[in-house]
């Protein structure tokens, strides 16, 4: 999705360089007091979700990432980061947020 000037005007934040997150991993950020997990997938995309697992509040940023699938570090629930949905269970969903990289590799999160 191209990065649009109007969208960021209200509620976008620059979280700094993507180099803060090693490829294939996630890291946790605080935005206006709210915790957000940002993932830097080897598929070239960046994803953002709520920071804690809806199951037992594991830090999702410490999970394992494969493409757009995230596996929680505690009990291995898997989530599709594109939709936030838990695999095999439509009822359970993570909050997801739009996130883009600038040409300079800066992470822009839209809340």
């Amino acid at each position, binding site marked *: 999705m191209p990065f649009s000037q109007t969208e960021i005007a*209200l509620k976008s934040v620059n*979280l700094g360089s993507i180099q803060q997150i090693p490829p294939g991993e996630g890291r*946790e950020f605080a935005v206006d007091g709210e915790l957000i997990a940002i993932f830097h997938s080897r598929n070239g995309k960046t994803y953002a979700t709520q920071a804690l697992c809806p199951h037992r509040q594991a830090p999702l940023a410490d999970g394992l990432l*494969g493409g757009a*699938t995230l*596996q929680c570090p*505690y009990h291995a629930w898997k989530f599709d980061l594109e939709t936030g949905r838990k695999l095999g269970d439509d009822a359970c969903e993570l909050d997801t947020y739009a996130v883009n990289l600038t040409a300079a590799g800066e992470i822009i999160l839209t809340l």
Partner: protein
Amino acid sequence: MIHYHPSVTVSDNIPPKTTPSGKSRLLVIGNGMAGARTVEEILLRGGADQFDITMFGDEPYGNYNRILLSNVLNGSQRADEIFLNPLSWYTENDVTLYAGVRVKSIDRAAKTVLTTNGETYPYDKLIIATGSRPFVPPMEGVNDENGGLKPGVFVFRTIEDCNKIAGHAVKSRRAAVIGGGLLGLEAAKGLLNYGAEVHVIHLANHLMENQLDSTAGLILRSTMERMGVKVHLGKSTAAVLGEGHVTGLRFKDGETLDCDMVVVSAGIRPNAEIGKEAGLTTERAIVVDDQMRSVDDPDIYVVGECAQHRGKVYGLVAPLWEQGITLADHLTKRKETAIYHGSKIATKLKVMGVELASMGITEPQEADDEVVVFSEPKRGIYKKMIIRGDTLVGATLLGDISKASYLMQAFDRGTPLPDERASLLFDLGTATVAGTMLEMPNETQICNCNGVSKGAIKDCVLGGKKSLKAVMDATRAGTGCGSCKSLVKEVVEWACDGEVEEDPSIHYYVPGVPLQKHVLIAAIQSQNLRSVSSVFEALANGVEEVGSKMGLASLLKTIWGAEYEDERDSRYINDRVHANIQKDRTFSVVPRIFGGVTTADDLIKIGEVAKKYDVPMVKFTGGQRIDLLGVKKEDLPGMWKDLGMPSGHAYAKSFRTCKTCVGTDFCRYGLGDSTSLGIAIEKRFQGLETPGKIKMATAGCPRNCSEAMVKDLGAVAIEGGKWELYVGGGAGAHIRKGDLFCTLGSHEEVIHMMGRFMQYYRENAKYLERTYSFVPRIGLEKLRQILLEDSEGICDRLDTEMQASVDAYVDPWLEAETPATANQFTTLVGAGGAI
């Protein structure tokens, strides 16, 4: 509505066909285990909307669990504790109960029943569930002048019987029980508790001849005699002696036995007369079709001990449940095609405090029937199986019924038995099923880690998931500690009814790369793939599968050693930060303490560090070292630096610890220096990646204080300066005693052979496969040939590869100085504000 002995309100004229409610009238004669259960099944199927239900019960209360009368007699339960349907149940369910009212006859033409107090009740549908009554064989003097039983003579069928027996037993000095079947023995056991001397008189030449073969009968007899019951076999009672009251018994052979009470337990007779007199076909009991309907009258159903189905009359409860279900399905039209196929009789019984399970035949019947027997008469244990082809056709377990559930299930479903017959009779590994699949309630929790019930697994299968893996993925059952996996498999097989699909990926090393381990290794080597991402690129169409990353990382490290191209995102969080993640997102720190031997200085240092970082818990582990729990991610590097000790790898799939005992240093029994051997082992193999965890121990003598015989690898010192090497043991989620692999002459030999074994394990085990599975899978003999006799000519190579891996070891805690990735130990990277 409950009625006791209604005195008036007799209707002369037969009421109209339907009730005011417009529903049909369903009458049930008999309010026992079959009658009441069948009504429950009918209600479950919405029967209350179709029928006005009325029940007649000869006994003046609601339905109770007749099986538990034995407990009532022996005093372990009170009569009011065994009710299944208390009176309130009838009211709540709108069932009219006439308790204490006996039905005398059925008028099929008028479609009415007549009670003994002269009242008539119309029906549209009728269920006969009158059960059976005790059979009293003809014996001189058994009756009093009125035709009742002589005072002092009792039968054992109802609560009332129980009360009478108990009332008499308290003043009895010697009691005789006629009949050495299940019920007779239970009565005898009950009587023992009243302090009387108890004799069992049995006609056949061994006890419980219907359920046991003669050997088992003999063992049971001695078990009973040890408990104080005197057993007389092959004895036929001719007369009950005594004027006005029992004083003894006389047998056909002329011998006599003095006694002041007699309990007759010589079998049962179905209460079928009521059907016979109404003109229904009655042989041993009332004959029914496959819907449990009388063969003569489509409006009359028969269920329970008074029914004869396909020539069989059952005297146990399990068949009654199945009959009731078919009847209810048919009657309510929920499933008019329902068929009762007859039941296979498998029972678990508690006689005389003796555990007993029996099913099917007791002796081989066909030439090829295979008989497997284990007998240990002294401890009262006897186990016998009769196997035809690959299925179980009969089994007896006496004295130890721990394997009963599995066998009952195999018997019931005719599932093929495993080749290793011994595993059917003994627990060789971890405990299994707690009841047959059929018996097991849906709520039973199968996976204790993820709280998945039998019902949830069943639903998942019914929803279309027909392979073990698909069910595990969907429900998470079996994906916790893994100890329930075999049970999950059993449930899946049961629910699939034999149509289990095998998921091909179970043969792959990791699910995301469709290759078995040896093919995968060959591909990795030939294509020179040194990183996880390159493997996905080359061998999995570039699809990075999350569940495959850790397994691939472990394998690549084993193959390439120092030349492995490490991508940190392929590691589990524990292996990225070299500590074990905890439930509150803190971590635990376990420094290596070689062989469990430490020093005062090191202990002081650990204490100081714990204080400095405010560690919430300091704990000795089961691996003979110290765990600092509850450490923040940020504090990890600082703590390691302060400790100045190497990592204990308590978080990794790798060599863990080598526990030791004090051995020759201090122990008066020590035969070999287990302590220094353990330290040397741990120094050499620390941090070594393995497919599953490797835990070791060394023991200074076969007393085995360090539990070396239940470790993945264990060395036990024996006389003569030698060491026994055990492999494939474990005592965690799965318990297996290690196999004695070989006997070696020195510390060096032990360490060398352990290394060779581990390298072979690293190359050939599946990911996460512990040695307790790996060793039996490959086979001990084969492992000996390969690793001791070098049958494949690979020993030198294995030794060299192991040396290379040992040389490649770097303590991960050195990353305290130079982190490997950005923000490796940061919990919260940064905070941002709106732009």
